[in-house]
């Protein structure tokens, strides 16, 4: 799956904006939005918030978790533990990138947030590689991955699944003929 598709899913998350225009309720297929009144916060999906921001029609209120101090705590916790700690949003990496690239002026301490999230990401990705290696070494058939976000999974998905599938086939060599694949050769 391409990262832009993961980002596409992340853009369905809701976020608060402060519009500078007025518009009555909109009945979208995916649900109703608005009404929009200048200066009053309203919740919209991220894809709409970014579009309105680019067209200079609103300011974006960063989500509560996108706060330098909170993220600092999470980073320390992530570094302390060797399991994946619970993450405030399933799409923390995508939302940080989207909001910081398009609405950095609406987000205080934007650069600290960007570095904090990058640190959290790097720590977790290193853990993911460790657990992948142990999963292969122990030749396990099942692993539980709570708290892992879709973007984290997606970055190593193809490599990990291809490797697991290759290993499975090499292992089926141990029981010649019993493997599910029919052994008709040419």
């Amino acid at each position, binding site marked *: 799956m391409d990262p832009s598709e993961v980002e596409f899913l992340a853009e369905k998350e809701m976020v608060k904006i402060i519009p500078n225009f007025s518009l009555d309720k909109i009945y979208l297929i995916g*649900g109703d939005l608005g009404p929009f009144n200048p200066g009053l916060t309203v919740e919209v999906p991220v894809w709409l918030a970014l579009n309105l921001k680019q067209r200079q029609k609103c300011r974006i209120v960063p989500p509560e978790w996108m706060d330098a101090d909170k993220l600092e705590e999470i980073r320390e916790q992530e570094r302390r533990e060797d399991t994946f700690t619970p993450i405030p949003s399933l799409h923390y990496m995508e939302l940080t990138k989207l909001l910081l690239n398009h609405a950095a002026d609406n987000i205080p301490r934007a650069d600290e947030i960007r570095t904090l999230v990058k640190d959290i990401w790097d720590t977790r990705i290193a853990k993911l590689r460790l657990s992948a290696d142990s999963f292969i070494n122990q030749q396990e058939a099942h692993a539980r991955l709570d708290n892992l976000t879709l973007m984290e999974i997606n970055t190593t998905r193809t490599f990990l699944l291809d490797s697991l599938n290759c290993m499975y086939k090499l292992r089926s060599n141990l029981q010649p003929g019993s493997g599910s*694949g029919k052994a008709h050769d040419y």
Partner: protein
Amino acid sequence: MADALSEASDLSGGEESQDEDVLTPPELIARLEEAWLNEKFSPELLENKSELVECVMEQLTHMEENLQRVKKGDLKASIHRMEIDRIRFVLSSFLRSRLQKIEKFFPHVLEKEKSRADGDPSFLSPEEFAFAKEYLANTEVYLKAVALRHMPPNLQSVDMLKAVPEPCLDSFVFLRVKERQENILVEPETDDQRDYVVDLEEGSQHLMRYRTIAPLVSSGAVQLI
């Protein structure tokens, strides 16, 4: 402009009665996204969702008609158009991943369809079935015309069922549990390990072989991610 973009038409007015409960538009879109992800990550072709596809197409064309009557540059219209673009992307990507699997495993898909008992749900929509048959015919005609007919008599055909690899149901997949499941049997990887059983709590995420949870995917108990 009269609010042509009134309440997106509810589906209660569907022609024939649908076995699933009647879907509101938001549920429809949510179902489509689930089907899209499952199809994208499952090694085999899943059950066809032609009803779902039809309903979504209906919503899109209905909304597009409304938008024709709206003057250009209207903010509300541009928001609706953005949503249509997003839904149409998911629908196209969903149908594309189905089509790619049909083309990749066409002999097996056709074989499965032919040997399907009448009652069972079909994996191919009628249009997909037609497309798969044409693809098989077209490819066999091509191979015959270019080379096979010039080969010695006993070599003038290739058994596509054997030549084209089957989907490997033992591939590993990532999944998120939507409805709690107990005692899911996990086949051991090595013969010195014994079978063991795993519980799947709601909301938990797992990495395991597709074969063990295939029925849960079609029932919607788990979502591939």
